[in-house]
């Protein structure tokens, strides 16, 4: 697991503490019952703070799974 993925798992774990690492990597709005709108806002805030990125309003509806958030961060984080 690379550093970015590890940090992202930690972000997800802070919002969904009942999920293990495997469940987090496969997590999506459909598979995690606790992933409601409030959890979404909290998750995106944690991710923004962790990676120093600003998620645009138009991008928010697309960030509905771990892999989607991972792709977004990979493309937007300063390297």
């Amino acid at each position: 697991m690379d550093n970015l993925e590890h940090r992202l798992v930690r972000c997800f774990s802070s919002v969904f503490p009942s999920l293990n690492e495997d469940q987090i990597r496969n997590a999506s709005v459909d598979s995690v019952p606790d992933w409601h709108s409030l959890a979404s806002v909290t998750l995106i805030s944690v991710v923004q703070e962790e990676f120093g990125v600003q998620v645009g309003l138009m991008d928010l509806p697309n960030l509905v799974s771990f892999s989607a958030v991972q792709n977004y961060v990979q493309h937007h984080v300063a390297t």
Partner: protein
Amino acid sequence: MKLIDALAVARRPVAENASLLRAFLACGFTPLHLETFLVAALSDRSPMERVEVATGLFGDLAGNIERISAEDHDVLVAIIEWQDLDARLGIRSLGGWRAEELPDIVKSAERMMGRLEKAIVSAADLLPTYISLPTLALPPLFATPSQQTSSYELQLRLCVNRFAAALATHPRIRITSTQRLDEMSPLATRFDIQSELSAGFPYHLAHASAMAELLAALIRDSGPKKGLITDLDDTLWSGILGENGVDGISWHLDQQTHVHGLYQQFLASLASAGVLTAVASKNDPALVERAFEREDLLIRKKSLYPIDAHWGPKSESVRRIVKTWNIAADAVIFIDDSPMELAEVKAAFPEMECLLFPKSAPQAFWQLLRRLRDLFGKSIVSEEDSIRLQSIRAAASLPDSSNGDSTSLDSFLQEARASVVFTFGKQKDDRRAFELINKTNQFNLNGKRLNEASWATYLDDPTSFLMTASYEDKYGPLGKIAVLLGHLQGTAATIDYWVMSCRAFSRRIEQQSLSWLFEKFHLRELHFDYQQTDRNKPIYDFLSGIAGTPLTGDIRVSMSSFFEKCPPLFHQIKAAVNG
């Protein structure tokens, strides 16, 4: 604190039997991360406490406050932002920013502040209330450019300041410091417009975290330090008294020694607010005496007690001073310009905070003053605060009863012309009684503390009683120095809380209190909910004396046995009933 850490702290498990703090967070926006940060900040300050934060309805700050119930919550935290005063002062409403609407916005904000003031005062009558005034910049609705303040903006700010000044006089209302918040969180980085538009939460995370820290510090105040011991040479004044002489020491602008004058002024301010202030100095006592005769000193000699000057180690002075004050070393701050002296005192008193006086670094000196204000800061300066040092001075003239010489104590007390005022009543707003219960350590029946909610609940019980004692003798008043809380059951009473200020020791006030209780309620027996603590030996000694047996949890003392052992009492008694 980062949000990810706050989430972890907020979910940290606490013991099942942990006490519970139920806060109500009233705000007009979505509380979202502020709620998380507040739980985390409070949990960090009280790790043994479980914190629950409840919130109200979006967009209805005043209604949320008006609906609060003391049965469900222990404290109220109200966050006011401009849009709560008039929705047009926010960005989620499109009510119009036309120039002709500005007077109406100001009027409408004034009306809302009137409603909020009423709601907050009513809430504060029920439970402790913490207020945050608007922290965000006003939106660009005024006609003036940003470098110019609009008269409407000034009217709004005036209105908020009047509102806050009125609330700040209420004993159960605390308002967060905007100046402190400005230092912690720059104004330009507070507002998160995207979060406000998408989630109704107007703060950047760092600002929400700073606000929560500030509120938690106010709600879970660790309590002020009690005493300050200062060095003299190159600390209270500039120069070495033994070398420069009385006229050679200085503290004035023209001699570039002004920081010492500021320090004197600051110590005088602390002393006037009830902080015990004393001197520990390696010096010639006679010379020190002469130095304190200088008329231009900004702190008078009478405000410093004791003044301990000699050539021995400073820790010896500190030990004597702490003993005279009869307070714990961890409640004392020691200040000296010499790192070596600080280290010597610190080695003798590891629990004491020892701070360097930075005589050649004005900026560090400024930080020292601010640090001291935080360490000694208190919300209310009481009558007892103003007479504390005077009563300790008087206590120094008392004979030592611990050596068993009761005859000299008898004659001393007989001559003292002492009077005690016992007050019976159940006044929930008796801040002094509440404060004594929560800060007294030595003469304390069991070390139990009460928060505002449990204090109110206790007093609401029809079988409970509250007795306080105030003392005065020819040496001066001690003010309210003892509090006793108990329950009546027929001809017996159970004492659940009993504390007495250490300043009141050796005056037989404890015996007089029980004597008066027996008489007032026609009691045959008193039960004491005694528990040993690390520091309550004085009450152990007293109770084992009147019980005549080794102490266990529930101590029972009959009227006949008490009066058999009670020494002569010489006080004139006045009883008052209120509430």
